[in-house]
């Protein structure tokens, strides 16, 4: 926060006094534990200080303490709403440094679960964001409950695949731990068919709603220049007119084989970010179908199952691997000294960089807009605080 803004706090009734208001850390619109100190002039925010770290577990220290075999299941606890992609970032980095092969079937399975995870994560985002803007959307919880219903269907698929609904431990170094059970592919196809049809219903519900448009259009505008400077990624940077998607910029896990579009909007406001995510639903469903159609036969891992925690050793070296998570670029920087644990492991969390945009865009907006803007950023605090 600008130190000047923090200083000017006067309590009075003259109409132009400044007031510091504490939003959070237990505020329903924060979608986690996040505290925003808002400096207000009347209803207008003039400065913001974001206080984060309530969920800090020092994942980077944990990563340096746990072996390559132990950590992947912990990695899913960074972005727990899209655990598939956070695990994938870690194992990809280790595979890059250690030059481990990944069989083609495992690569396709990784794409399949990553895209289903994106759909599930966007469902949760859409539902909670609409819940935040509640009253304007004719009954508040309607869209939320619909979205939770869709997300449940995908979590059921993940449960059938891995035995867990949120934190999967699906990826392992050199491939995946599980193969598709019998009948799973058919169930997945039916699920995405239903979701695809319902996305259209939500669009009709929201985009015909004048209140929704007023609350999102022209609110929280991020310019292209600011988006790059702060290091936004995912739907946020694509909502500001930058065509940046890791799946295109640096295709990993056979993404080059798939035919999909990278949706880009240029307005940079909450509505543009909403439109990007709505189009991503459909693109992800397209990729899921392609992955199911083209799934190659063969092994799912280039390594045998591990029998002891120190079994995976990575030669000396370093590397940075990134994947496109639901919220943007999730990356992992690993330095190996040749032992069973990384010497240094750094998380690049998409939510951390995305949340850093708030102090730049909130000033000048009304308090009610803060909620709309925060929801459009879609932060997951496990990933912000790591």
């Amino acid at each position: 926060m600008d130190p000047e803004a923090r200083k000017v706090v006067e309590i009075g009734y003259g109409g132009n006094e400044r007031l510091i208001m504490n939003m959070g850390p237990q505020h329903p619109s924060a979608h986690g534990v996040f505290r925003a100190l808002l400096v207000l002039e009347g209803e207008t925010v003039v400065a913001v200080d974001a206080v984060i770290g309530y969920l800090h577990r020092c994942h980077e220290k944990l990563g340096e303490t746990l072996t390559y075999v132990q950590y992947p299941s912990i990695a899913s606890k960074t972005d727990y709403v899209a655990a598939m992609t956070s695990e994938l970032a870690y194992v990809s980095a280790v595979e890059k440094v250690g030059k481990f092969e990944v069989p083609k079937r495992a690569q396709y399975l990784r794409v399949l679960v990553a895209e289903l995870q994106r759909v599930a994560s966007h469902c949760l985002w859409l539902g909670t964001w609409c819940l935040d803007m509640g009253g304007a959307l004719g009954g508040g919880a309607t869209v939320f409950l619909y979205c939770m219903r869709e997300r449940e269907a995908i979590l059921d698929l993940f449960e059938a695949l891995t035995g867990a609904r949120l934190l999967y431990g699906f990826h392992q170094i050199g491939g995946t731990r599980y193969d598709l059970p019998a009948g799973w592919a058919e169930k997945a196809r039916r699920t995405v068919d239903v979701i695809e049809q319902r996305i259209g219903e939500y669009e009709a519900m929201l985009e015909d709603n004048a209140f929704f448009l007023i609350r999102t259009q022209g609110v929280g505008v991020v310019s292209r220049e600011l988006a790059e400077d702060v290091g936004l990624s995912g739907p946020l940077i694509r909502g500001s007119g930058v065509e940046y998607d890791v799946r295109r910029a640096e295709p990993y896990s056979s993404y080059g084989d798939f035919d999909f579009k990278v949706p880009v909007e240029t307005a940079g406001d909450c509505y543009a970010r909403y439109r990007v995510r709505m189009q991503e639903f459909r693109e992800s469903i397209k990729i899921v179908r392609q992955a199911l159609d083209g799934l190659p036969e063969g092994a799912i891992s280039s390594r045998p199952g591990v029998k002891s925690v120190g079994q995976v050793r990575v030669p000396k070296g370093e590397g940075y691997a990134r994947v496109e998570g639901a919220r943007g670029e999730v990356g992992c920087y690993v330095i190996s000294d040749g032992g069973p644990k990384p010497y240094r492991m750094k998380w690049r969390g998409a939510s951390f960089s995305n949340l850093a945009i708030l102090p730049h865009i909130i000033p000048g907006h009304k308090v009610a807009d803060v909620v709309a803007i925060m929801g459009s950023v879609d932060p997951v605090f496990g990933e912000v605080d790591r």
Partner: protein
Amino acid sequence: MNPADAVSGIREKFGVEPVVDGATVTVALPVDQWREAGAWAKSTLGCRYFNWLSAVDWKAEGLEVVCRVENLESGLVLFLRTRLGAGATRCPSLVPVYRGADWMERECYDMFGVVFDDHPDLRRILLPQDWEGYPLRKDYAIDTPHAPYR
């Protein structure tokens, strides 16, 4: 701007030899050229995208600050690194060049105790303001007790 142009430009401007791996150009610089290199990467190489910044503790050899910036149009990735020297903790801040460096440098200060000169608001970001020590340093044991527990 392709990696080959970037390499010759860096060689000419800073007199160091970069390492190229695909589209990634890694440059190790002395700490007094740190901000100049950031500004030059942004203006000349078009690396306007600030991806992340962090540090590595090399024990007796001291801390190293690393930073990744990108040119999203050409796909060029510039990976900057600088050794602060044994026992040294000061590094010029990149905030005057990239606004995204603000939170990243605060996190780096929080975890490694790197003091970024000219940072507008250098406070702890993830840990409480009264926390003692820098957890990601190698001499900080993972079971260091911190009573009273909060």
